[in-house]
């Protein structure tokens, strides 16, 4: 076999092994976290409530303004595009359906998750990475504290609560944004718009978005954690891990979104 081919094969092989290893690592963190969440209290090592609240405030509460603004903007954008496109068929009234479905099923969970990945996923990687570098993780372990219970489990719980919660907020703000533009463009009242939105929206649409947001929250936490825990090489390594976690989380969010959308709409 020519040398170039073997080299490429070797590269592909190495990358694949590295990916599988990382996937295994993420799975291990996930299962250990769930162990501590459900069994921790029994072995008198509960997951700290105060940490959950603190993380939830950081991940969720502090993201409320930016999530509101962005989803509102996306709502308006959808309305503009929707009305412009549907006008060519003379079906502007259908824009309400278009906005309602695309916001709840797709845009709200997606925008919220990407935002949280950028804001909090990167922060997780940076914080854990710094702790690895300064031996704080080792210090936890020698004190007899599992870093997974102490750091990872609260993050997981906080993320699982806050991302879906932000998605619900995003749904509302997105629909509101769409409504504000559509109402002025189509000369109908806000009440009529709301009524018709509620007519077309079914529980399943909201549920689809929320299921996705749950999956995305797990992705964000695990990607942040594996990148943080594997940090090597000082401040530069922490920087690299942070960047990598954002790129990796957003890519995985988009891919899993596609897969879930495909299976949930069959």
């Amino acid at each position: 076999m020519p040398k170039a081919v073997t080299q490429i094969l070797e590269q592909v092989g190495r990358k694949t092994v590295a990916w599988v290893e990382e996937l295994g690592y993420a799975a291990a963190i996930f299962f250990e976290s769930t162990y501590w969440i459900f069994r921790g209290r029994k072995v008198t090592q509960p997951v700290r409530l105060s940490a959950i609240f603190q993380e939830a405030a950081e991940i969720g509460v502090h993201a409320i303004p930016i999530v509101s603004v962005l989803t509102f903007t996306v709502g308006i954008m959808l309305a503009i595009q929707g009305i412009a496109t549907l006008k060519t068929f003379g079906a502007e009234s259908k824009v309400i359906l278009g906005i309602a479905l695309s916001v709840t099923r797709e845009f709200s969970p997606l925008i919220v998750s990407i935002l949280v990945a950028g804001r909090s996923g990167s922060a997780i990687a940076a914080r854990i990475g710094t702790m690895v570098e300064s031996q704080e993780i080792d210090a936890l372990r020698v004190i007899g504290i599992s870093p997974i219970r102490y750091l990872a489990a609260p993050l997981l719980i906080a993320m699982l609560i806050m991302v879906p919660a932000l998605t619900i907020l995003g749904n509302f703000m997105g629909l509101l944004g769409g409504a504000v533009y559509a109402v002025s463009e189509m000369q109908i009242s806000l009440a009529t718009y709301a009524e018709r939105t509620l007519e077309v929206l079914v529980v399943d649409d909201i549920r689809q978005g929320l299921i996705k947001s749950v999956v995305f929250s797990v992705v964000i936490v695990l990607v942040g954690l594996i990148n943080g825990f594997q940090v090597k090489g000082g401040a530069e390594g922490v920087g690299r891990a942070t960047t990598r976690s954002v790129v990796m989380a957003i890519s995985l969010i988009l891919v899993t979104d596609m897969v879930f959308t495909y299976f949930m709409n069959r």
Partner: protein
Amino acid sequence: MATAAVKENDVVSPPAIVVENLVTHYGEREILKGISLQIQAGEILVIMGGSGSGKSTLLRSLLGLLRPSAGSIHILGTDITTLDQHEFRKLRRKTGVAFQGGALFGSMTVGENLQLPLREHTRLDENTMRIMTRMKLEFVNLAGFESLMPAELSGGMTKRAALARAIIMDPKLLFFDEPSAGLDPVSAVELDHLILKLRKAMNTTIVVVTHELQSAFGIADRIAVLDNGELLVTGTVEEIRQSNNPRVQGLLNRQPREETLSAAEYMDRLTSYIVD
């Protein structure tokens, strides 16, 4: 004086640490090549060696942060290479570690740092914990610094605070990673004095890993010299000074280790990267 204390202890208590044929790997590379070592209860043993000697790896193995490829490590009578997480946790209550950079939790105050082990392992009330924190900070001359953040401490203060955290549970066994590294001479000596004072006050077994000769000679009952993953000699300060092992002498006289390669080995190393 120190040796006398050790001899007394020899009779009554079993060794605090017994390491047998410890081998560790980093990837394919063998780091520790079959280390055997006994540390008596109540003694101060200094593990000495240059960088790359494997002393940090040995420490990480003793702390249970690194799984060895072969061999056994008995700490206070239990083999830590076979312990599960929960059993190990019990043992952790009896050991303390002061890391090189302190490793104080940056998001907590000094006081909270000290109280963390108490909160995790005991059900003491807040007042008792506060008193214990104060006592340990007093011991390391940092009383009144409870509410400071680690970032506000100087290098020497950080190390002393880390020592205070390490001894908060009154451990039987204390590990110290490079106590004098990065400190000015006065702070370094201060810390050495603290280590001696600690042993006197609580009869703690203390394992110190360092590359600082002066500090090692100042505090050690016995010194174990590590080089290239092997234990060269173990002995009292005097025995180490008088050792006629050339590598030990090289280390003491700060001579770089000379690599002895045969011509064939040298050629082999040069050409090993060439692939036909």
